[in-house]
């Protein structure tokens, strides 16, 4: 059995190659051995690519969620602007549509990866948003007994949603934190100073920023 003194290099030019020594078995069939340092390097390379692929899949899911909520919230604020009497119950329908839509997106995502995927399904985003929604709803009902002003509830719940987004940003990426903080400040500014333009400006701030975030995530997903 002989061990060649030179590394076996791959035929394709311009690419990195891990160091491999060539060995010949008694029957003359070429076998190769990889040194431990190259094996460590190869495994760390695999881990890095897997991490990037998982990140890209988070970006794709986040983009879909942002587009969904951008459309729903824009519709909700504009609906209330034109029909304030029915606007309150419309928000109930919109929130239910949002939850159903998120479940559908999650289902679609699982369906795509249902077999043969080693990509872990991350339940943390839905758990964070669920916890924030329950926490926010309990305090809202305790403080207003369900009879709070429209402007208060229409400001309060987006900030709760944004709080969830900020928490998710702690592991998904700082862009979520920035989006959450920016929208929260914009929403508070609209609440304090918008006057009769409240619904229009909320549609622009909440819907507009969520749509912009959705495009950013989509771009990051294709670039990842």
């Amino acid at each position: 059995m002989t061990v060649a003194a030179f590394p076996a290099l791959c035929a394709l030019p311009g690419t990195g190659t891990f160091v491999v020594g060539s060995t010949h078995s008694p029957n003359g069939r070429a076998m190769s051995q990889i040194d431990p340092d190259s094996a460590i390097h190869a495994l760390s390379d695999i881990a890095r690519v897997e991490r990037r692929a998982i990140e890209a899949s988070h970006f794709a899911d986040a983009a879909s969620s942002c587009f969904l909520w951008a459309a729903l919230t824009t519709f909700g604020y504009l609906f209330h602007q034109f029909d304030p009497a029915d606007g309150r119950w419309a928000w109930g329908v919109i929130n239910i549509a949002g939850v159903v839509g998120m479940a559908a997106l999650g289902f679609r995502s699982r369906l795509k990866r249902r077999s043969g995927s080693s990509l872990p399904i991350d339940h943390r985003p839905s758990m964070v948003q669920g916890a924030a929604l329950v926490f926010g709803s309990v305090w809202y009902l305790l403080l207003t007994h369900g009879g709070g002003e429209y402007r208060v509830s229409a400001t309060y719940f987006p900030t709760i949603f944004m709080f969830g987004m900020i928490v998710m940003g702690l592991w998904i990426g700082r862009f979520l934190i920035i989006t959450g903080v920016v929208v929260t400040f914009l929403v508070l500014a609209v609440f304090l100073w918008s006057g009769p333009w409240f619904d229009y400006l909320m549609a622009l701030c909440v819907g507009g920023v969520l749509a912009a975030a959705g495009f950013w995530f989509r771009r990051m997903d294709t670039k990842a």
Partner: protein
Amino acid sequence: MTGHNEIIHQSIRLRIMAALNIMGADETIVFSKLKGLVEATDGNLGAHLDALERAGYVAIQKLFEGKRPQTRVKATPAGKRAFAEHVAYLREIIDTSLPPK
């Protein structure tokens, strides 16, 4: 010890298989996105995908999205199996190189 897989071990091909391996059996990835993930140029990625396709490790679909051509790639079951075996082989190398406790 399982064998060393010369086709997969090349660094770009190893990255390609790592990216494809985490996806579902029917899930495909667009060429441009894969290029970003493995940090390769168009020509380089195309050449390595050809090598992996010839080995039966990936399946390449060329379709049209509207009027734009699109190349989609997925790992075959044989490719996923070969990748898993190669990763196990790399781990074995590291384990056997460690001094006994």
